[in-house]
């Protein structure tokens, strides 16, 4: 029944986001971009896409980091247009999207502060989607408790701090643990929020978030090899809303090398393909890239149905992947690494 009244509040924005989706670069665009010899060529080509004159206003010579920040700015403009027109519950949903960027920003700022970096130098590197007022003060905190009670208590991130409060000093290891705990709380909360919305939003968003949770679990496990993180510590960090929960997670917690992780993944057809050995002939891809590929696949599915919020999440994620692709191509172009230039992840396989 939600479909009947969906368009009353959210129809305009859904139309808008579907229109934006049509501007996502196609295969031919990537093909043309990959042929470029300089960043100037890329700029010329991007002018013929929906990015338009995005890069042309700059006066100095183009650099990759400038391209990156322009792309982020572009994404921020689009997102804030959506956010400012959104009504609840879509507005809450959109806010949830920004929280993950906020967590990343907080962690980056703390790590930067630990390395005695200046805040003014760190701020421009934060993702603009996750910007908030108290961001600059994050470096003051010494412990997670202090971080929570002094600085983040007013921000929406406060709700994810239930498990993360601890008195140990923030060092690099602790920051990573903090990030994992925050993400765990965040994913679980987002998952249950999508469940309460129900309908197609639940059907679309839950698999995406479950995939995200499982990806975190795998990555945490793989990254923890060789550190002094114990099994119980590790299992406390796994988000419990994924498909791996509960058996897979307990198996993962006991895994001690890559082969054992692969054995766990083999039990799940969706993850088996990610850990499978690459076919001979195709180029080598990192685990991260394979996860990204799978994520893109899941997100493109969201556009097959109407009257749900999944398209907003998927659009932002796809656009982020597109930015990663452009930056990758730009890096390859500037470093003259033509052989690796095709390692981007095309978003829509068919030219629509």
């Amino acid at each position: 029944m939600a479909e009947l009244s969906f368009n009353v509040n959210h129809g305009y924005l859904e139309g808008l986001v579907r229109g934006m989706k049509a501007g996502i670069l196609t295969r031919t665009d990537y093909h043309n971009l990959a042929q470029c010899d300089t960043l100037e060529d890329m700029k010329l080509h991007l002018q013929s896409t929906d990015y338009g004159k995005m890069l042309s206003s700059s006066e100095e010579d183009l650099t990759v980091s400038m391209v990156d920040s322009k792309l982020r700015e572009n994404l921020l403009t689009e997102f804030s247009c959506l956010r400012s027109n959104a009504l609840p519950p879509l507005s809450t949903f959109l806010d949830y999207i920004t929280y993950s960027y906020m967590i990343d920003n907080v962690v980056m700022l703390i790590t930067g502060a630990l390395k005695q970096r200046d805040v003014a130098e760190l701020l421009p590197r934060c993702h603009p989607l996750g910007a908030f007022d108290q961001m600059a003060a994050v470096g003051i905190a010494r412990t997670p408790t202090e971080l929570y009670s002094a600085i983040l208590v007013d921000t929406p991130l406060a709700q994810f701090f239930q498990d993360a409060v601890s008195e140990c000093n923030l060092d690099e290891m602790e920051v990573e643990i903090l990030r994992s705990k925050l993400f765990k709380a965040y994913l679980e909360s987002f998952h249950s929020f999508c469940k309460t919305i129900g309908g197609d939003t639940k059907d679309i968003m839950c698999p995406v978030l479950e995939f995200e949770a499982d990806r975190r679990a795998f990555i945490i496990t793989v990254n923890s090899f060789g550190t002094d993180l114990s099994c119980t510590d590790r299992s406390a960090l796994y988000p419990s809303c994924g498909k791996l929960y509960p058996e897979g997670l307990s198996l993962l917690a006991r895994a001690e090398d890559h082969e054992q992780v692969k054995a766990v993944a083999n039990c799940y057809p969706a993850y088996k393909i990610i850990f499978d050995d690459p076919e001979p002939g195709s180029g080598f891809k990192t685990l991260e890239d394979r996860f990204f590929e799978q994520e893109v696949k899941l997100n493109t599915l969201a556009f097959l149905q109407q009257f749900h919020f999944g398209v907003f999440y998927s659009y932002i994620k796809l656009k982020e992947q597109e930015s990663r692709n452009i930056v990758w191509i730009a890096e390859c172009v500037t470093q003259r690494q033509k052989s690796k230039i095709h390692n981007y992840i095309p978003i829509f396989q068919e030219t629509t």
Partner: protein
Amino acid sequence: MCSLLRGEEMCLAQLFLQSGSAYDCINELGELGLVEFRDLNPGVNAFQRKHVNEIKKCEEMERILEVKKADISLPEGDVNPVAPLPKHVMAIMEQLQRLEVELGEVTRNKEKLQRNLLELTEYTHMLRTTRNFVQRTSEVSVFISGLIQRTKIEAFERMLWRVCKGYTILSYAEVEEYLEDPDTGEPTKSVVFLISYWGDQIGQKVKKICDCYHCHLYPYPSSNEERTDVVEGLRTRIQDLHTVLHRTDDYLKQVLMKASESVYTWVIQVKKMKAIYFILNLCSFDVTNKCLIAEVWCPVNDIPTLRRALEEGSRKSGATVPSFVNRIPTNDTPPTLIRTNKFTSGFQNIVDAYGVGNYREVNPAPFTIITFPFLFAVMFGDLGHGVIMALFALWMVLYENNRKLKNTRNEIWNTFFEGRYIILMMGLFSIYTGLIYNDCFSKSLNIFGSGWSVKAMFEAKVWKDADIRGNRVLTLDPNVTGVFRGPYPLGIDPIWNLASNRLTFLNSYKMKMSVILGVIHMSFGVILSTYNYLHFRKKHSLYLVFLPELLFLLCLFGYLVFMIFYKWLVFTAKDSRLAPSILIHFINMFLMQAPTLHRLGMYRVRFDFADEFLHQAIHTIEYCLGCVSNTASYLRLWALSLAHAQLSEVLWTMVMRVGLRMDTSLGVFFLVPVFGLFAVLTVSILLVMEGLSAFLHALRLHWVEFQNKFYSGTGVKFCPFSFSLLPSSFEHDGLL
């Protein structure tokens, strides 16, 4: 005339441009706007083409000019500077860059000064406000003071409390004035605050929090004497800054004034140059790499001009080897070019809006010039309204060179202005049909004297005085001698304006007229199709399509028209009771001769090809059904004309007559507002609204009923490379 009827004859030509003179040649062609270039490297990306660097340079210059445009008020002139030579480009580029640097420097300086000024103002405010904050100064406490945005103060206070756990005292007060935010330029409210704290560690934290909330911190004076000193110093510095700022402004204005003289020229020059390089990118190189080859569509008649332009271009660049043109045969369909002037272009646009004609197809536009205003006027027929419309259009036509009328950005006005000749014709034809209908603001004009006489009824002793007193309505009998002295010389007899059966009479008249006009219009369309068949050498279509079509139309609806005329001519007032009903007769004819339709369908069986047969069968059915529905469609002429007449009559009786009925002298004063209302309603409803609706229906009658008989309209418009067609120099638009 031939060009207007069929469009210009086109040919594909190859231009061999010597690489040295190619730029000048293309420039020459751009000024003339003779030819349409074809892309010879369709598979090559935009950034892999030959002149991509030059285009980039042009874009760079455009970007600089774009920035300038925001600051400089431009003199709109009709100057048309020629495209600069490639060797002069560097000079322009240099000048532009110098200008950009200079402007940038001045603007940056100005910004710096403004920021400085803001800081000093803020400091003054802070000193003035904090004077009352502290009554007792304790020795241990340290002060931090500054300004923060009004919206952030609450969050700031809260965080300060949480982080420092109460080891601080914060006092703040709002600044009354709005201070300009240097980043956004918006006036914002600020709050002056003073924090006193104890201990170094807390101090570090407090400073960090202040940074985080973008507070502007200023040193807090330790004593009152120091405070007054600082305030004094600040006041003089603010005054100095004001004078400096003033000077900077003046200088900036001077720089801009100097630039504005040449910016307009530059914008056009850069546009032209970019266009030339764009065209050069469409050309391909020959094997020897010495000359460029371009393929163009060109009107056959313009080839000598094209040759001369190339010679001129070669001469200008001082090339030793001339560039030349070579006609090449082709099987591609050329684009359609129909030359128009300011009078015919409006009518051509009406046709093109439906579809650009195929190459060398009969163009309906020359006939539309007469039929369109005529069919419009049939629906709009009113002498008074026609005069107003014609006068309005005449005014536009007489002042068409007035720059104020020409260069407005009002789209609605531009639409009317573009169609001024159409409106003029529509107005003139409406005057004519208004005379025929004898309608002027719903009243009839009695110019020649009515052909009917009431007196004759008395003289023949048919009516007596008692009849007139006893009856509200009496019928004039044309059979009585002297009552009807023959038809009125022009149009409808004015006496019908008084008759109560006027509507019945006019309905019958207008309905029949609509059918007659419609059948003539459609037959004309069918006849025009012969021109296409003859030109495209399709003689068989002449016998197999045109003749059956014409026969069908004339045998059914031509016969109907014949019957209408026959009934008008043969039956007079005397034997009018014996006149048969055309409608009943026609229906009977249809029912008895229904098999005709089938026979016409069978006619096509001769063709062997199944799809040809199917296509023709569909065409046959479509045409037969179309004829019926199209004829019925022409009844809109009657309906719209009736609606227009009725509406104007309603307006007269409901508005104007109310004013005219007042007998007292007060009525004169009452008449003024009533006439105002009448005039406004006449223009807004009868002229504008009804006019638009009649226009729309006339458009439909031409597009559907007339043009589907012969016009396919699936061609491509010829769009020449011409500088005058480039997007208007100051609109932000891409090239071509």
